[in-house]
């Protein structure tokens, strides 16, 4: 029996190192495209590789990257979440409103309480959206596209209703602390949003690859009924995934509103397409079963580098939009290289 675990197969060669693991994944090829793009951009604009700009880029992609991690989970299960943009606005708005009304009521039980309570309220609101999505999709078995398109509209509507269209902004005694934990920089260089992103990505990577839960997420995306037949609690995992996605979007919303110092009612309008694009460019497959944390981040960096680089290179703004589209397609095209090489 000992020998059985080292069975060898005469007809099986070893796969080459570039045909395995990360190097054979779409993420790796998009990473290569990203590096090429960064070299081009730095040639076009001398400001591109300055410390200040890199810090800007880092912060900007962190804004959508946490939500992209969340949506990647959803996409791996074969679902989609169009409501992330609205959820970003909701959690930002709720956080600001709660902070404002605690200041107005002068309710301040412990130091930092206004900060903690308002952030929790924002996350709770986002989580509630995710719970609604998850329950509707898992239990009522509605199509994720239609359900989350519905919540996109519902949640945005509620944000308008709650603020009469005016949006809200963080105020009160803990405002400075709020700005510090959302828009601050660690060691004066690294945007704190990036630190959050790294933590989230690491947790997600471990969860996907080294826990049973992660395998269940992949199993649902690759063959939902197989997951059900082998006793995986498909409904529960799906609900969890949608809640996590909304929480990630909520966290993103709070961070953005801290940086802006405001939660406008139209915050993050139409971000859902960018966020999904980032996940897909980074290798998540909308058919389900494929995706990962590293890819999601690479996708976000790619999109932000294109945007930022074109502005810095002073490309005619009307051409910028056309170019963004073209470069996104080109970046994904490199992935074809992979398929061709790996047969």
């Amino acid at each position, binding site marked *: *029996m000992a020998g*059985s*675990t080292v*069975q060898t*197969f005469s007809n*099986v060669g070893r796969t080459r190192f570039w045909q395995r693991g990360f190097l054979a994944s779409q993420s790796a090829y998009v990473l290569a495209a990203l590096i090429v793009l960064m070299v081009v951009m730095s040639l076009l604009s001398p400001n591109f590789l300055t410390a200040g700009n890199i810090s800007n880029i880092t912060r900007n992609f962190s804004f959508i990257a946490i939500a992209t991690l969340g949506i990647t989970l959803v996409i791996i299960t074969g679902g989609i979440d169009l409501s992330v943009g609205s959820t970003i606005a909701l959690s930002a708005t709720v956080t600001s409103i709660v902070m404002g009304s605690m200041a107005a009521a002068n309710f301040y039980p412990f130091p930092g309480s206004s900060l903690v309570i308002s952030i929790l309220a924002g996350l709770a609101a986002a989580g509630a959206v995710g719970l609604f999505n998850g329950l509707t999709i898992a239990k009522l078995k509605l199509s994720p596209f239609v359900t989350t398109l519905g919540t996109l509209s519902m949640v945005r509507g509620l944000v308008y209703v709650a603020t009469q269209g005016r949006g809200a902004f963080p105020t009160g005694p803990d405002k400075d602390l709020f700005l510090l934990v959302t828009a601050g920089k660690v060691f004066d260089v690294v945007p704190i949003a990036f630190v959050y992103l790294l933590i989230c990505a690491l947790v997600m990577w*471990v969860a996907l690859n*080294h*826990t*049973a839960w992660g*395998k*269940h997420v*992949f*199993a649902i*995306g*690759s*063959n939902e*009924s*197989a*997951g*059900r*037949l*082998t*006793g*995986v*609690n498909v409904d529960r995992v799906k609900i969890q995934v949608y809640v996590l996605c909304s929480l990630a979007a909520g966290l993103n919303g709070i961070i953005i509103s801290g940086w802006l110092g405001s939660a406008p009612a139209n915050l993050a309008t139409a971000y859902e397409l960018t966020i999904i694009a980032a996940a897909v460019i980074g290798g998540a497959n909308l058919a389900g*079963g*494929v995706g990962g944390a590293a890819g999601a981040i690479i996708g976000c960096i790619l999109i932000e580098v294109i945007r930022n680089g074109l502005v810095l290179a002073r490309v005619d703004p009307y051409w910028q939009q056309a170019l963004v589209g073209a470069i996104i397609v080109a970046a994904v095209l490199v992935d074809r290289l992979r398929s061709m090489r790996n047969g």
Partner: protein
Amino acid sequence: MTKEFGAIRALSDVSFEIQPGEVVGLMGDNGAGKSTLVKIISGIYHPTGGTLTFDGARANIGSPGEARKLGIETVYQDLALADNLTAAENIFLGRELKYNIGPFRFLRHNAMNARASELFAELKSETRAGDYVRQMSGGQRQAVAIARTRLSDAKLILMDEPTAAISVRQVAEVLNLIHRLKEAGIAVILISHRMPDVFAVCERVIVMRRGTKVADKAIANSSPEEVTALITGAKEAA
């Protein structure tokens, strides 16, 4: 142990029982309702009418998960594999091996791969535990589905055409396996279109035709010819 079924269109008033350590062959033409019967027992479909008794108590099996907890393992005809997971991950899907770090539980990848390789070796199958099921041959996929039932202490194993796609030498191993299960007191329902297999391992054979049970007799009192006649409808009932 008794199981009674009402009818969903594909199945009308089929009822039979099976004892621990008994191996029952379930045969019938294509579309006779065999897989439907299996899916009811394993909790995928709910019977439109009729009841199910397991271990003396009336069982209400709402989902495949519940069936598994009761000790009912199934090899499905469509195999129920997740293409994007490896063979080992498929085998352990839903009951992964884990170790604890504080409150967290992480996967024991190596242990699972090793155990999966053992199971394949036991089935004499040339299937690599770390390969993705996506790129496996038909027989290798079937081996994965069969290996899955070996993990737990089942009381009843349903096998829906487990030998359809596998090669001669593994067929022998699967029949061996069924013998060993029987000795361990596990009940097995074997669906197969291969007459010799059924006659090699089963004690009793149930024949279905167009959703009804037309025969339920001991192998000893029957013959391949009779069963064939029952399947094709040349003989009405026995």
